């Protein structure tokens, strides 16, 4: 249990690193502080949030910003399907669980062996990420100008490493699956708009595993 909690807090802290870059980029895109914070509190889904400010920064219409973040949020629905099975939350808890259903919380949960740890992994990571992500967004939005670009600090690589760490425990048994998804996503990125290639890999998951 202690191990799960320490993973959850680590993941929350790591998310904070690129939460700073989100806040800073959102401020540069011209969003006011209230809108920036609402994105991190209400939308609370990194991919969708970066897509939203990307469209706004490029001078896109509000409806394009809404559509982009909506499309990039699909994967949370797949996570929610898995998590509903693990958590079986009722009433108000269902709404809270839904809001916290993101890459990190589902990733930590899926990496655990027993049901109890899977549940703890979800809640602890969801709450830790929510707290650190919002604090970091605020910090980035207020101090972004002094920090310079995310690339200078290697924060883009930190984000990739953070996701690698989440999937790491699952790689041993799913090498082919992971490799196929990586190839499809990278090759797809040459032809398709950002966000679509990653989503396309869901098709790979549809292929049932051969029984051993």
């Amino acid at each position, binding site marked *: 249990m202690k191990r799960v909690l320490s993973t959850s807090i680590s993941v929350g802290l790591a998310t904070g690193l690129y939460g700073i870059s989100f806040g800073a980029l959102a401020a540069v895109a011209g969003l006011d502080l209230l809108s920036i914070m609402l994105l991190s509190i209400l939308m609370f889904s990194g991919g969708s949030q970066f897509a939203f400010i990307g469209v706004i920064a490029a001078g896109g219409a509000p409806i394009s910003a809404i559509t982009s973040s909506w499309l990039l949020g699909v994967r949370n629905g797949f996570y929610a399907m898995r998590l509903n099975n693990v958590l079986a939350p009722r009433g108000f808890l269902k709404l809270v669980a839904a809001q916290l259903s993101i890459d990190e919380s589902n990733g930590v949960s899926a990496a655990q062996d027993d049901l109890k740890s899977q549940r703890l992994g979800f809640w602890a990571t969801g709450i830790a990420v929510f707290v650190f992500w919002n604090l970091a967004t605020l910090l980035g939005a207020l101090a972004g100008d002094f920090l310079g670009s995310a690339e200078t600090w290697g924060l*883009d690589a930190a984000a990739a490493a953070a996701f690698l760490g989440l999937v790491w425990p699952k790689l041993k048994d799913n090498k082919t699956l992971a490799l196929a998804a990586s190839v499809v996503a990278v090759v797809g990125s040459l032809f398709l708009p950002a966000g679509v290639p990653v989503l396309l890999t869901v098709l790979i998951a549809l292929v049932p595993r051969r029984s051993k």
Partner: protein
Amino acid sequence: MTLTVILASLAVFSWKILGYLIPQKWITEGIRQFSERVTVVLMSALVAVQTFVSANQVEFDARVPALGVAAILFALKVPYIVVVIAAAAVAGGLRALGF
């Protein structure tokens, strides 16, 4: 802008809640296994894109060695947060050196 943010947030939430509204009896063993595989597939795809892709092009820049270092450290069971910071340091360091 605030209204746009709220509408977009509701749009994203629609996916999150959808997964919880599917009746349990519809979730067969096949669907359960699919949702486990989807987690691995999406995460791997995200890592690959974040490491090798910039604006619709494959690019081998400072992120690639940074992820290589991260993979080695994860294999050595180095704590998560240390690995993430090391990856940032490698990428940031290489860029500072002009790579």
